[in-house]
């Protein structure tokens, strides 16, 4: 029982403890505040004492210092966080926007710097390869299509390819999400590619070889080509080896042609060859040429071999005839155009993008019934939601929360599959630990395709070198520098990262190129090397679209009808027209730091609805036409400034806000841009009047 004195002297008052007992059993401590018997102030002498004690206190205070701040002459220095009147730091005009562009080895530093200063647009920040989508949209809206293509190509070496197959993290981070719908960045890549076809010949620019070092790249997948592109741009001679007959790696063998027409891929790779790339197809390093040979001939070797084989889950019957791996299946479908499933029923195990690709390929190669079984529930499938949607549209039957139990065979040939209900996929710690239920289901089918994981095949490749694989067949690689145990051997792409996205592979290619450049020019690999920033842009909750005018919505990508598209491998999306593309590009908010881009976050967040923002989105006219703050409604709560994605809207320290008329309290666009630098009250001009009086 801690009883403290009420007069600060430390002596306990003579209060009773627990004047009124609480009903509960628990013994709770409390102080009794009544002080009837505290030594009577009721007495005559004591009351006089109390009178003089009080007078002493006031007298002491009167002799002490005053606490007054003499307002107009000296101003109390308000907190730097003080929420005074709002002001804008800048408003987006029609001027050119900053293009994020630099040669590769310093590019990360540029991004890092922009990120640290909160100047990175979310689309650029969320893209693994930091493709300047904002710049692309700007160029397209202003009619500079070729510049747009070349800008995108710098980071995303094959805009035509990625414009079709990318999973576009940029779009999920786009600030338009909150407004209406995100920018169609990926279709605009594709549009830029298509427009570039006309000028490709005349704009081709061969990279000059300015350095005498040479680099070999093993694999012509996206990561290898990205690294090769960067190294060529830096003046190295680059030779790319591809073991298949056609370049492109997984883009060729793993991506069905209904998503990526083969001519696009070849056009893009040919474009690189035109720029000086030495591409040698049909040469498998390790078999045709030993890696030692490369190490002797080239100053550096980059392994970008990708993933070669599928994992098949060892359930009973997995070795039966008719059980296949996804990559083999896709390879067959892509190379031969026939996967051997004509007239058969196909069951695809797995819920990733590869599984969906397999399922849709199976439909196109003549399967009668395609089922997709995955462990996860329908809302947590790892594939992109639009993929499964399109697949279901075409007739794929999705079976969620089902795990493979046994492959049913008849005479060594697959006749069906026994599935088991899956209750949860991950345990509490987030590890993969499927929890199976007691329900079983049997599916009849002739082919089972496992799309449950892929792995690299590197044994032949590394044979004879100092490189060693670990027991799982994986090459140990530094995840940020992309170096291996040999100083002149680097690796990038899915060999390093495991199964991932094309744009993610490209990003590693850029990084590996940076490492190689540093290695070859004798610089430290890690010094001044900035980690790739991973901006956490929250996924903006999609806005309600019922009231949005049609002109503000995202331009719909025209698509083939589902019943048509399941028939063949022609591309599903048919592309933008010129007008659609320019309109779409003009929708870009052109997010810049400390510049209001008219995203209306503030107006939406404001609990008082005191902010009115209007914006024109027309091509060539993109501007903010109105930004009104009704200061008479503003509650100075700070929510708008907190929400402002570009930090353009801030609270100034200004608090002297007296007006003779209510109309003056509506701050327009110009008033919001006023310079408030000097109005924050500071103690700087304080006179020491109070002190002067003290002295007197």
């Amino acid at each position, binding site marked *: 029982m801690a009883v403290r004195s009420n007069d600060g002297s430390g002596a306990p008052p003579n209060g009773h403890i627990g004047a009124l007992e*609480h*009903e*509960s059993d628990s013994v709770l401590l409390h102080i009794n505040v009544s002080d009837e018997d505290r030594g009577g102030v009721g007495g005559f002498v004591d009351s006089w004492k109390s009178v003089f004690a009080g007078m002493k206190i006031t007298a002491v205070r009167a002799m002490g210092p005053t606490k007054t701040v003499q307002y107009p002459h000296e101003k109390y220095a308000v907190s730097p966080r003080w929420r005074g009147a709002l002001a804008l730091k800048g408003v987006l005009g029609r001027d050119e926007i900053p293009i994020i562009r630099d040669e590769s080895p310093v590019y990360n530093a540029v991004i890092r710097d922009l990120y640290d200063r909160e100047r990175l647009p979310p689309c650029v920040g969320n893209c693994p390869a930091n493709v300047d989508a904002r710049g692309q949209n700007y160029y397209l809206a202003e009619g500079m299509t070729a510049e747009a293509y070349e800008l995108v190509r710098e980071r995303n070496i094959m805009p035509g390819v990625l414009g079709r197959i990318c999973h576009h993290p940029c779009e999920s981070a786009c600030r338009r999400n909150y407004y*209406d719908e995100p920018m169609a960045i990926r279709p605009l890549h594709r549009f830029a590619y298509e427009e570039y076809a006309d000028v490709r010949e005349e704009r081709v620019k061969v990279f000059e070889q300015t350095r005498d070092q040479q680099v070999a790249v093993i694999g012509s997948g996206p990561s290898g080509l990205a690294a090769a592109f960067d190294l060529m741009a830096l003046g190295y001679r680059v030779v790319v080896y591809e073991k298949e007959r056609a370049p492109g790696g997984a883009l060729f063998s793993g991506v069905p042609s209904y998503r990526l027409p083969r001519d696009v891929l070849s056009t893009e790779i040919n474009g690189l060859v035109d720029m000086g790339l030495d591409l040698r197809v049909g040469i498998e390093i390790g078999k045709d040429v030993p890696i030692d040979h490369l190490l002797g001939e080239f100053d550096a070797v980059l392994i970008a071999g990708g993933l070669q084989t599928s994992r098949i889950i060892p359930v009973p019957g997995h070795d039966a005839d008719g059980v296949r791996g996804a990559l083999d299946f896709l390879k067959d479908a892509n190379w031969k155009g026939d996967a051997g499933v004509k007239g058969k029923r196909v069951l695809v195990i797995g819920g990733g993008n590869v599984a969906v690709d397999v399922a849709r390929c199976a439909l196109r190669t003549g399967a009668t019934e395609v089922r997709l079984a995955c462990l996860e529930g329908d809302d947590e499938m790892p594939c992109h939601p639009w993929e499964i949607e399109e697949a279901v549209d075409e007739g794929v039957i999705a079976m969620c929360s089902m795990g493979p139990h046994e492959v049913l065979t008849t005479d060594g040939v697959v006749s069906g599959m026994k599935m088991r209900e899956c209750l949860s996929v991950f345990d509490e710690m987030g590890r993969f630990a499927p929890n199976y239920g007691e329900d079983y289901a049997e599916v009849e089918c002739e082919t089972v395709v496992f799309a449950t994981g892929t792995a690299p095949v590197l044994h032949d490749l590394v044979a004879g070198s100092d490189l060693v694989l670990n027991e799982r067949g994986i090459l140990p690689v530094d995840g940020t520098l992309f170096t291996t145990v040999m100083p002149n051997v680097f690796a990038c792409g899915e060999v390093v990262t495991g199964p991932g996205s094309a744009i993610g592979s490209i990003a590693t290619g850029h990084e590996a190129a940076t490492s190689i450049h540093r290695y070859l020019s004798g610089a430290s690999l890690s010094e001044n090397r900035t980690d790739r920033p991973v901006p956490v842009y929250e996924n903006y909750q999609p*806005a*309600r*679209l*019922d*009231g*949005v005018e049609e002109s503000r919505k995202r331009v719909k990508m025209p698509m083939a009808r589902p019943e048509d598209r399941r028939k063949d491998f022609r591309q599903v999306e048919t592309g933008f027209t010129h007008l659609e593309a320019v309109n779409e590009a003009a929708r870009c908010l052109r997010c810049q730091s400390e510049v209001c881009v008219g995203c*209306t976050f503030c*107006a*939406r967040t404001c609990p008082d*609805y005191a902010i009115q923002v209007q914006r024109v989105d027309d091509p060539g006219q993109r501007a903010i036409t109105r930004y009104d703050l009704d200061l008479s409604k503003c509650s100075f709560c700070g929510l708008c400034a907190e929400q402002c994605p570009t930090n353009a809207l801030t609270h100034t320290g200004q608090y002297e806000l007296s007006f003779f008329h209510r109309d003056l309290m509506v701050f327009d666009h110009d008033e919001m841009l006023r310079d408030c630098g000097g109005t924050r009250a500071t103690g700087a001009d304080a006179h020491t009047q109070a002190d002067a009086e003290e002295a007197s």
Partner: protein
Amino acid sequence: MKINELREHLCAQYPDLCPLFSIEFGDGVLLVECGQLLGAASDLRDLGFDRLGMVTAVDRGETFEMVYRLTSRSMSAGIFLKCEVPRDNPVIQSLTSLWPAANWHEREVYDMFGIEFEGHPDMRRILLPPEWEGYPLRKDYEDERIIHRPDYI
């Protein structure tokens, strides 16, 4: 007190209230018929719920949901007592006989929802002026003096 203990306690004392008890967002809820309200409240008070924390209503369209929040000092627990009042005849028993605290709360509910309380000593508007028309917290309340917020899409 844990909510399950509370349920056991309640079921042991008043078996007829037991089936009406449910748990929602970690709080006990006792949903009764309006006719039973006074009896149930009185039972709960005898059980130890000695304080009436709050009386309010929710406009559920066809009905008004009356929500009473009772708290018990001895059990350190709270419980919701709920019942549905028809919108076309919004009359319910007053709890002023059990807790004088209900007086102002019920006046407020009357003021905001137009629900009348039988047996209330002083059924007048409390927050709004006496001449006010309508019951503002009803969802269908319309007043030309309200300026509705602009709807940003």
